[in-house]
């Protein structure tokens, strides 16, 4: 009966209506192994019984890139001059797809896991966290592809000399983290809302699309009239995409103050999302 004396076990207190700020960080650390398992599951399950396996992580953005290149680069000519349109769109999508994927897959975190949540307890934040991490795999595959294309244009085309990577590229990890927290934050907010209103599910797809057009993904920020540029600037994704392109393609730099503002907004959204989600998730099971 004394086998439980070491290590000391924290006493858990369950009571209703705990403060909004109560986030079970310790629980998340305890369930670290579950995060790893879920990430593995996401990855294996996603590509089992598909013909091309992980190749889909390239094919999807690649097809989008080709469509964009043809439609916006060649026909509508909104991509900046002096840059190969293909590279421009590969880079833009590198800064967008990860965010969009997180948003899309965490947007229904509660409803998709309702069955599991009603049978077993683990910190409810774990599934969306795991999806955020497992989406990184696709991101890196996409990144490698981008690097290959970059190397090709740098070495074999006359656009090569224009391409140069500045020291700003060192903030690349920060940009990834930035996309992750913003996508997760918005996803959690949507997921909490869908817990009450199921039909908001359909909204996620539209939101992602509209958001993409509101972000300088298919066009550079410089093509936006000065008068409307502030609209783009309060959109936190603008800073991410613009900075990423600045880092790799040496396009016009985005103001540091603008980037910090965007980072601030993202962090706020992230915490609002977590708090909101935690609050809803605590009794979500009762409403299923």
């Amino acid at each position, binding site marked *: 009966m004394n*086998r*439980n004396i070491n290590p000391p076990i924290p006493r858990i207190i369950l009571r209703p209506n705990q403060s909004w700020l109560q986030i079970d960080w310790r629980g998340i650390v305890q*369930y670290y192994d579950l995060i790893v398992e879920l990430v593995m599951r996401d990855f294996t*399950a996603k590509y089992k019984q598909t013909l091309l396996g992980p190749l889909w992580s390239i094919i999807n953005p690649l097809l989008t890139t080709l469509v964009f290149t043809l439609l916006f680069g060649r026909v509508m000519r909104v991509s900046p001059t002096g840059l190969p349109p293909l590279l421009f769109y590969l880079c833009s999508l590198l800064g967008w797809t990860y965010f969009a994927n997180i948003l899309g897959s965490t947007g229904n975190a509660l409803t998709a896991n309702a069955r599991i949540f*009603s049978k077993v*307890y*683990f910190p409810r934040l774990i599934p969306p966290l795991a999806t955020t991490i497992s989406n990184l795999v696709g991101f890196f595959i996409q990144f490698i592809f981008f690097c290959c294309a970059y190397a090709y244009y740098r070495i074999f085309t006359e656009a090569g000399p224009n391409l140069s990577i500045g020291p700003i590229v060192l903030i690349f990890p920060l940009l990834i983290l930035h996309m992750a927290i913003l996508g997760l934050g918005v996803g959690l907010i949507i997921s909490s809302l869908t817990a009450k209103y199921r*039909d908001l599910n359909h909204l996620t797809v539209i939101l992602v699309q509209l958001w993409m057009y509101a972000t300088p993904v298919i066009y550079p920020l410089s093509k936006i009239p000065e008068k409307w540029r502030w609209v783009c600037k309060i959109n936190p994704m603008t800073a991410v995409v613009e900075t990423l392109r600045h880092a790799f393609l040496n396009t016009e730099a985005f103001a540091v103050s603008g980037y910090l503002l965007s980072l601030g907004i993202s962090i706020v959204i992230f915490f609002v999302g977590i708090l909101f989600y935690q609050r809803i998730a605590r009794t979500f099971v009762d409403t299923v």
Partner: protein
Amino acid sequence: MTAPIISVRGVSKRYHLGHIGMTTFREEIHKTWNRWRGRSAQKPKSPHEFWALNDITFDVQPGEVIGMIGGNGAGKSTLLKILSRITEPTSGEIELGGRIGSLLEVGTGFHPELSGRDNVFLNGSMLGMKKDEIRSKFDAIVEFAEVGKFIDTPVKRYSSGMYVRLAFAVAAFLEPEILIVDEVLAVGDAQFQRKCINRMQEISQDQGRTILFVSHSMPSIRRLCKRCAVLEKGKLLGLFPIAEAVELYSRKINPSACDVEVRDRKRDAVANGSVCRITRVRVLGDRGLCFNEPLELEFEIEAPEMIEKVMLGFGFDTVEGQRILTLDSDADGRNFSLAAGQNRVRLSLPALPLHPGRYYCSAAVGLGRVYYDIVDGFALWEVRAGRDDWESDRRFGGCRLLPQVSVENFSPVCS
């Protein structure tokens, strides 16, 4: 006395009936729109409140094995859900002195595409085990589940028996300080079920763990627990020594009507009711169930499609949970067929051999060992003394059949 490992203080849980659950945004807008236009003829209905739990207070000492009994809707599962942190109480407080592991369902989160091995790790970590812990128990789990060489096959290719065995095996090796077990989890064929129950006994006895054990089976409760909580309509009647609790429980519950519409199923059958399901069971005749009188049971079975071969089984259990009489339509090896739609099936006996008393009734449809639908303990029926029953108080054995009597004086005494 040490500090209690579970301390429940004044816990209540309220559910809203009527407008439970998720609405769609469209409905909400519709309501608001109507209200705005003054068409609020139908005011938002005053929410029906329902207290699933009402002011529950009790303590459990470390190492105790507590049984929990109560009829349907007594609040057992709500209490389990709150204790296992799946939902929150509406008021009150619970203090837990350790990690809690709850088995309310086996196989939660199993992914069909993943191999048995991957699923053991996934499910184990979902239940709160560490990776190293699972690794060290892995061989024992596989052995217990009897899946052997199939461990690297995706579980979607498993037979349903293998699937539940593997799922239970993971759960059986969970080692938190407090374990919450719902006994309907004992799964699989009779042999494996016995293994499951033995395993639970092993856990509770050898390792000094605190266990909350919910069951309808009085023999298992008797075997595992010393104290037992009795719940009734959301209230805790108290924690009693086991004999007292069982006695109290069987006195408290009222027999069901002779015509039962079956709604909730406690146990999942293989096909989960998709092949056919029992929707209604009733006793024909106006006298109900009587000892030594003809018995005729009528079942309504709903089948989405025609079923060529099917059998129907019916069982009577004593309140202690002992199966005492089974009526299987295929006892002579013959099955019947069902047309698509609603079917009526009757089982009858010339004379019911059960002693007067109360019995839990269960029914199942299936073929051989595969069950399409199981309604476990759907009713508590009372068997009354028959019209010409003079010996009802002579309660020896489970059943009493009237034998044919013949007397032969084979060696007469010569006078």
